[in-house]
């Protein structure tokens, strides 16, 4: 018989005690739901259509995503959701119903009540004609005019929509040289050469076409969706921003275009701590890539020696979504990659110097994920205790991972998962009603939609209505919200890292970013729960160009904009 170590039992009891103390009401009554789906109530009526045809075309099981971004500059997050449509030749044109949709957030704050968004479909007025088979969205102000632009990754040609600043967008894809006709799963904007202009990384998947569709089968011999191994992987593309509204394709000279991989997730982040943004690409069923920035717009792929290409057993896994953030509180951004059923989600702890270790086993994030196929994911501090918790949105891609039965995608539906950070790199599953819904979840965008100081989650389900999971936790520790803005252009400084120093507690590190998750773009603002150490002594920002500045403590329970160049300069 196995012996149960004493320490382990004690640890579990302590963890449970901490959980109960933090969340359960004193009365002993059932815990109220933390997250409530308010999509319908707030006017977010949209269903992502996979266009299922019975032909089991690969893209039908992979889309789609969404973006949370303040396109109208009014201080609240608006929504763009990509859309799919029937791929079978001869299918009727769905018209505008088959296009992605833009929803404007008209946030209202009734006297004495909590802020409440009201979403209005402004797609027609915006001029956006997202006619491609939508997979994902990326956001960033590529022309430095202070307005956030939108990049749409499609199965087929992509689109770059320039924000005109008057509520409308212009398709500048061709003029900017920003297309990629292959199957793109997502993209990310980052200033890879630190010249002040956002470059664009386009994440490509596999060489599938309706014409080269093949028949694949489940282990039970039933016809099923294919996996990526049935098709050739496709290299990604890196576009350098020339600063004049156009991009130069530097895929080959940078090295990026010389390695093909079935990419489904991408994050630009300074993983080796040298001040230059690197790239992590989660490949589906193949070794992941860690592209280390060589500071001259070339990259070296270091995934193997870094310890993030394969799991601890040396197996490639089906990388889908990525959460990048300092989950273990050591000041370095760690990685959580979501994977297929029968694989764990894998937690790579950043050891510094561009090296990682697979810390899944001791993190508690592996075993509970085994039955599920994870897609959208993100770190979020849902209880404001200063530690990054984790949300994972699931949905099978094949019958081997399906548990249900029924028509369409129903058999592929799975529940989602929310994990609470217990500290020390350990996590525990939270039983949260809103995460029990059975759906085929894909993209998830994270952001404070109602500006109340906590992170809400927009979830895109395949052939299901979008969900807006709103954090309704009422009694939270103090928090600070930061928007990190540029000087030359009033744009979000993607890639900026923030250190929040607190009295009597370790500093908290966060990053201004929109990328990660799956096929989605999140809120670029930084939200920091202060937990039991609410006194902030200083905020330090490492800006994307390497400048380090300190700022006085911002007010609690409010958003503050920190502008690059206006703080006190510090040595690097």
């Amino acid at each position: 018989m196995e012996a149960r170590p004493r320490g382990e039992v004690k640890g579990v009891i302590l963890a449970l005690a901490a959980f109960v103390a933090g969340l359960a009401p004193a009365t002993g009554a059932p815990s109220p739901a933390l997250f409530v789906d308010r999509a319908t109530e707030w006017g977010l009526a949209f269903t992502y259509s996979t266009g299922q045809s019975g032909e089991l075309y690969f893209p039908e099981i992979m889309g789609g995503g969404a973006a949370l971004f303040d396109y109208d500059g009014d201080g609240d997050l608006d929504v763009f959701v990509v859309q799919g449509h029937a791929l079978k030749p001869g299918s009727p044109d769905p018209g505008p119903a088959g296009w992605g949709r833009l929803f404007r957030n008209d946030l209202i704050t009734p006297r004495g009540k909590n802020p409440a968004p009201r979403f209005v479909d402004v797609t027609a007025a915006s001029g956006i004609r997202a006619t491609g088979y939508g997979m994902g969205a990326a956001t960033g102000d590529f022309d430095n005019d202070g307005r956030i632009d939108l990049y749409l990754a499609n199965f087929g040609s992509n689109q770059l929509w320039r924000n005109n600043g008057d509520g409308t967008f212009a398709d500048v894809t061709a003029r900017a040289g920003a297309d990629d006709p292959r199957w793109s799963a997502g993209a990310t904007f980052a200033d890879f050469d630190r010249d002040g202009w956002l470059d664009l990384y386009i994440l490509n998947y596999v060489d599938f076409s309706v014409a080269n569709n093949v028949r694949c089968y489940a282990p039970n011999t039933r016809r099923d969706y294919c996996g990526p191994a049935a098709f050739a992987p496709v290299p990604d593309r890196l576009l350098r921003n020339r600063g004049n509204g156009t991009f130069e394709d530097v895929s080959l000279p940078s090295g990026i275009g010389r390695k093909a991989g079935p990419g489904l997730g991408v994050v630009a982040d300074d993983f080796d701590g040298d001040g230059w943004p690197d790239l992590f690409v989660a490949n589906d069923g193949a070794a992941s890539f860690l592209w280390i920035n060589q500071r001259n717009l070339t990259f070296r792929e270091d995934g193997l020696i870094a310890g993030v290409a394969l799991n601890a057993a040396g197996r490639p896994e089906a990388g889908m979504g990525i959460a990048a953030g300092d989950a273990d509180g050591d000041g370095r951004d760690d990685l959580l990659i979501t994977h297929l059923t029968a694989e764990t989600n894998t937690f790579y702890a950043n050891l510094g110097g561009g090296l990682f270790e697979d810390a899944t086993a001791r993190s508690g994030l592996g075993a509970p994920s085994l039955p599920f196929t994870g897609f959208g994911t993100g770190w979020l501090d849902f209880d404001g205790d200063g530690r990054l918790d984790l949300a994972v949105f699931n949905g099978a891609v094949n019958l081997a991972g399906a548990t249900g039965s029924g028509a369409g995608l129903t058999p592929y539906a799975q529940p989602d998962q929310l994990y609470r950070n217990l500290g020390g790199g350990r996590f525990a599953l939270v039983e949260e009603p809103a995460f029990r819904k059975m759906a085929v979840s894909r993209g998830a965008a994270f952001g404070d939609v109602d500006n109340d100081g906590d992170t809400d989650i927009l979830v895109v389900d395949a052939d299901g209505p979008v969900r807006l999971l709103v954090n309704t936790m009422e009694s939270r520790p103090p928090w600070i919200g930061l928007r990190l803005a540029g000087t030359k252009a009033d744009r979000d400084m993607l890639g900026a890292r923030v250190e929040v120093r607190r009295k009597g507690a370790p500093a908290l590190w966060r990053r201004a970013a929109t990328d990660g998750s799956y096929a989605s773009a999140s809120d670029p603002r930084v939200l920091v729960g202060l937990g039991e150490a609410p006194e902030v002594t200083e905020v330090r920002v490492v800006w994307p160009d390497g400048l380090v500045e300190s700022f006085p403590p911002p007010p609690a329970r409010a958003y503050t904009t920190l502008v690059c160049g206006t703080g006190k300069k510090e040595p690097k």
Partner: protein
Amino acid sequence: MNALVLALVLALGAPANPPDLSGLEPAVAAQIAEMRTLGAPGDLGQVYLAYGFNDAAADRFRAAAALEPGDPRWPYLLGAADQAAGRLDDAAAAFARALEMSPGISPSAAAGWVHLGEIRLLQGRLDNAEAALKKAASVPATNAAARSLLGQAALARRDFKAAVEHFEAALAAVPAANRLHYPLALAYRGLNDRARAEEHLARAGQVGLKAPDPLLDGVADLRLGERVALMRGRVAAQAGRYADAAQEFRKALAARPESVEARVNLGSVLASAGDRAGAAEQLREALRLDPSNVTAHFNLGSLLAGSAPTEARPHLEMVVAARPEDAEARRLLAQALRDGGHLPEALEQYGQAVALAPGDETARLGEAETLVRLGRYAEARRRLEDDLKQMSTSGLLSHALARLLAACPDPSVRDGTRALALAQAVWQAQPTADHARTVAMALGELGRCREAARWRRTALGQAPQQGESDPEDGVSCRP
């Protein structure tokens, strides 16, 4: 009805949710239907487990255990079904029950300890994992698999020295398990031995290590039908086990002789195993059955492109017509055209291949070589110079340019100094006979005849080691 009879009836009853058999391969549906009618619950459970119906399998194994509570097979297989479904606590409890019922350490029991150790490792319960795996390691049949998992447990503890010992031991026992080189490399990295880490990374592959597991291996053998054999064959082929893969594809053909997919796959693995004639025979037969099969055309075309370009050409043209965006097919077609003497057509196809796949250095090289064959030397040089601007670290293109600059028939294209620099860089990166010969040619072009002769000897010395036999090395000297 007494209590015992009632318990038996309940145990033998149909599972709550028997799997829907629609859409299954007919032979498989018939097999399951027959087992439902005839089989005891444990037998039916094994068939369910064989096809991935894990919940239904677990249900039947529970029923079997109720009928035969002293038989360790049922909790063991229940553990396997629960593990496959991701129910790790249930799986561990079931394996533990099975192990309690198995006196001593038999091969089956040892495999059970491996399962239990693997589960505890996934759960992060390292003490429990190591306790189970040490028992498995004491049995020769499961020692290597247990040591590899003990290595993972040691890695998780950051006990890199112990991890190295375990992985080295597992690899010594099963050298083919090249997947282990990766965690071994990470263990060396943890010991700050970067050189050894890199060495093992270079040897890492995807051939894993599996403990013999008599019960579960028996379950796997229950799988029938063409599709199952096809899947097994693909898995074997991906792991580089071409003989096993060919055997599975032949089984698929036995199940359905008209299966084009099985024949195409068989052709592919025969080609990978070096049986080109056998491969061509299978692919031709596949095309007889399905003349429009693009994969068969591609495989046959690529198989013949190097040796029989005239025969390869129509196959590759079929592929390009069906898949105009297929860069690899265009490159192979270009090669067949070039080797068949159709140089302008080859050049056009190479151009399209490069446009479709700018990162394909082989296509770029082929394009330059075709220009050389057309006598358009200056153009070839310009093309290679441009290529190297795009792919500055390409040894293949650097070497081609070095050769052209060292030995081009058109003297105005030659540049011995640049050729030497390129050739030396390529040699440093990869010291092969061919690269040594190019250094010699560049030195010859510069009139440094003595050095050229020395490099020529180096090339000749390297050639036998590397299986090169070309005595016509093209090295000359212009004193």
